[in-house]
């Protein structure tokens, strides 16, 4: 065995505290598994915001509908990458699709993912864009003409009857999509929540907490993307849009905060055998990321700011900057929440008698640069999609 296989473990060993089982020195899931639920959450959250406009007829949010859908798609396209690249045998990843194990919570991920990508997101976007793509394929010249023609899949009928069907089918898909988005992310929570060996993860509230934090992060991301797009396009930000998104963000954040609070209160009050070690965990190794980053920066400050924005109508410029800051803080908070769950859950020993330590590397497949890459890549994809399918150049719908 070569020294590089284990040398880093000697360093970690010197930082271990108390007693940990000898196999527990190395963290099994690193930064990539922090990134994965964060990205999936953004997808689910962005989609749910888009559905608000479509299904619940929140017309104010019209300017963000396509932005939300394309954001969801950009991140969903990348969602599997951190997962596959963290496998020790990535070349065998396909086994999970062809021989899924029926009792494994992880086994159906591929199917949930494909369902969401192929049946929900791509179809909804296609039905929404088809009329515009037909028009673009006639207007454009050269390669782009061909590209749009391919994207229409040869369905060029833009008669009122066909358009009506587009709308109808798109609506049905959105309705199916809402529970799908709930399942997609609730399920990610279940992957952690169903591990009875780990008291920090094992709670029936985990899927629900993941779902609400997903909505929080997705809504904040769409708000941020909307502001950034408006900045680059030099268009005026519709404050009504921000106020409406801000209102939803406020309510969902309250729910999320309540749920996570309940989870912790339950833990503290029941004080089961893992209580002592978890108390040490949150007051020690997770102090900064849990109380400061997730609690204060990511939840309390945005909550208070959003509450103020509900009651006091500040100047337009101030409100815009407040929304900008809130959306960024919320994203930091939810990212920290993923960190606290994934990394936090592995820092303490299952002997409940000690801690290992986690050193985040910069380079390598499991390093922070790689994680940053997987977070930046969707933004690149989104930029491309916004160029290919600009929502602001779409053919206006006839009501």
């Amino acid at each position, binding site marked *: 065995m070569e020294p590089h296989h284990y040398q880093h473990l000697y360093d970690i060993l010197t930082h271990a505290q108390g007693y940990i089982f000898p196999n527990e020195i190395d963290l099994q899931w690193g930064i990539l598994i922090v990134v994965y639920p964060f990205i999936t959450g953004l997808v689910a959250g962005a989609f749910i915001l888009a559905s608000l406009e479509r299904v619940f007829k929140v017309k104010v949010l019209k300017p963000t509908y396509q932005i939300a859908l394309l954001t969801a798609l950009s991140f969903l396209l990348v969602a599997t990458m951190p997962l596959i690249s963290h*496998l020790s045998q990535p070349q065998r990843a396909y086994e999970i699709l062809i021989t899924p194990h*029926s009792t494994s919570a992880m086994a159906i991920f591929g199917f949930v993912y494909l369902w969401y990508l192929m049946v929900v997101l791509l179809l909804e976007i296609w039905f929404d864009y088809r009329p515009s793509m037909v028009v673009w394929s006639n207007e454009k010249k050269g390669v782009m003409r061909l590209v749009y023609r391919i994207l229409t899949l040869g369905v060029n009928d833009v008669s009122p009857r066909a358009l009506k069907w587009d709308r109808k089918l798109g609506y049905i898909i959105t309705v199916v999509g809402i529970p799908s988005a709930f399942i997609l992310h609730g399920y990610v929570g279940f992957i952690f929540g169903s*591990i009875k060996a780990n008291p920090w993860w094992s709670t029936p509230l985990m899927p629900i907490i993941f779902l609400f934090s997903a909505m929080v992060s997705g809504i904040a991301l769409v708000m941020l993307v909307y502001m950034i797009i408006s900045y680059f396009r030099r268009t005026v930000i519709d404050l009504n849009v921000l106020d409406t998104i801000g209102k939803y963000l406020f309510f969902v954040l309250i729910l999320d905060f309540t749920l996570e609070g309940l989870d912790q209160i339950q833990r503290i009050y029941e004080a089961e055998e893992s209580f002592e070690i978890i108390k040490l965990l949150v007051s020690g190794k997770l102090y900064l990321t849990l109380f400061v980053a997730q609690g204060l920066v990511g939840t309390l400050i945005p909550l208070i700011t959003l509450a103020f924005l509900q009651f006091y109508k500040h100047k337009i410029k101030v409100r815009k900057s407040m929304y900008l800051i809130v959306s960024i803080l919320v994203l930091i908070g939810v990212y920290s929440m993923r960190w606290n769950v994934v990394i936090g859950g592995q820092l303490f*020993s299952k002997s409940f008698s000690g801690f290992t330590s986690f050193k985040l590397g910069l380079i390598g497949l499991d390093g922070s640069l790689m994680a940053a890459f997987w977070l930046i890549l969707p933004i690149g994809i989104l930029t491309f999609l916004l160029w290919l399918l600009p929502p602001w150049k779409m053919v206006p719908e006839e009501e």
Partner: protein
Amino acid sequence: MENEKVKSSRRKFLKSAATLAGATIGYTWLKSSQFLLYGAEPEDKTLPWYGIVIDIEKCIGCGSCAKACKLENDVPKEPFFFRNWVEQYTVKNDGSVIIVSPNGGMDGFEQTVPDAETFKSFFVPKMCNHCAKSPCIQVCPVGATYDSPEGVVLVDEKYCIGCRYCVQACPYGCRFIHPVKKVANKCTLCYHRLKKNLAPACMEVCPTGARMYGNLRDKHSELVKFLKEHTTQVLRPHLNTGSKLYYNALSSEVR
């Protein structure tokens, strides 16, 4: 007339073929429809169904078991990979508990707590519990970890995708990712030896006979006799893992 006969026999053939196919599909479906809940059951009644006993009162903490295991199973020598290790528990007079397992106990132990402060001290050998309701098997997304017909939890190294979910799911810390093979690794109860009617390496070398394995189904086996005559306990019974590793004289501090 002749034609009728051919037709009728063909119909009969198709009918029975369809029934057979339906039954096969139905049976496989029923068998694999063990959704969500996992539980191993002995299928072949002629084969043994293995259980393990560790007698804490007999363990002297020599670490031979851990050493033998590494040698026999080609486990990396570095102190981060163990299929088998020994822990030393020291309960002090003030109630605090000190647990150590330097290099898995392979080099023996030193007692650092003075006798005057010690309430009690004992050794606990640890290894895979070969649970009947293994959380590790339950969570494996591809079914690369499985129960042998004798109830031994094994890993298919050519199939494991290295997702590490099983390592997370084991409450006993018995699994690790092999640093070179890059797949899950764990105690096999020396399955290759069992198949030749040889005892697992750790049991073979134990100088005090603190470890025992045997057929849980054979009511006259040494193991069953021991279980009958002693009050044994499994680790973390509340997790309902169906552990088949029974400890004699297990103290409440042990996790």
